[in-house]
């Protein structure tokens, strides 16, 4: 399937692309557009204004996708808190990891094209997910 989002990928779009590949569509192909009118007819748009998979009711797009797919994995929801704070910084959640993640993603968007940002952040989110999963099992930060 084809998925479309805004060019100039930052944290929410990078995390959503990872989530889509991991949970929704392992064969996902991503296209990046400058204007909503450029979204190809067959593509599902996300993290854009005026689409279902966007910010709604205070949620960032990552949270919206988790809700739409009724994901109840607590690790994924903890990761969602970090993505939410890195994206919106509205202090809804206590997620100290968010500031570092925001800085890393901002930097990548300055040095890499969008497709490369997704390549690089895939393993990063895999690792973050595993870190959070182990932390949840241990009930303390894992070594």
């Amino acid at each position: 399937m084809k998925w479309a989002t805004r060019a100039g990928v930052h944290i929410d779009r990078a995390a959503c692309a990872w989530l889509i590949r991991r949970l929704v569509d392992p064969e996902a192909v991503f296209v990046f557009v400058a204007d909503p009118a450029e979204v190809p007819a067959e593509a599902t748009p996300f993290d854009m204004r005026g689409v279902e998979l966007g910010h709604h009711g205070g949620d960032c797009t990552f949270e919206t996708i988790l809700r739409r797919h009724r994901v109840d994995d607590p690790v994924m929801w903890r990761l969602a808190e970090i993505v939410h704070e890195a994206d919106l910084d509205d202090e809804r959640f206590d997620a100290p990891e968010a500031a570092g993640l925001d800085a890393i993603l901002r930097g990548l968007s300055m040095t890499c094209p969008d497709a490369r940002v997704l390549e690089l952040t895939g393993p990063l989110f895999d690792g973050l997910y595993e870190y959070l999963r182990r932390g949840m099992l241990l009930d303390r930060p894992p070594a």
Partner: protein
Amino acid sequence: MSSDDEGALGRWVLLAYRMPRDPSRPRIAVWRKLERLGVARLGDGLVALPRDARTQEQLEWVAEEVTDNRGTAQLWFAAPGSAAQERDVARAMRSARASEYAAVTAEAAAVTGAGEVERARVVRRLRAELHRIGRRDFFPPPERDAARAAVESLAGSVNEPDEPAEPELGTDEAEERA
């Protein structure tokens, strides 16, 4: 206008929006969100921010919130008609941040005589507040450096910010020890 303003000159993103009077809750939520973003209010239902990837996205999502709540919203990219006009807007934004920074400086000064645990607590709170002000500070006023210096000087007066240590400091610690 000072040289550090130049990056933002002439490139603004404007949000023109209108929301129903009732219910008032979403309207107030949007108003608060715009305050948090540090927008310049150009008129009734018209706000502006210097345009960059982040501010454009912030206002796009506010626009989405407006339309999700039965309002109408448009995003425009704009340049001011004159340098003087832009200077006035920037001056108002800078001055709004200046009072916020001044409040931080005053709060830091107010607790220099307090106990160590209280000082450590205020340091944490004011650092968070500086972060909050900083992310909506597009035209940094001189008050920013004073506020940072005041908070860091207060931090320097605290030996172990995370360890409530001194016995005279308060009932919380005493109770914990008991």
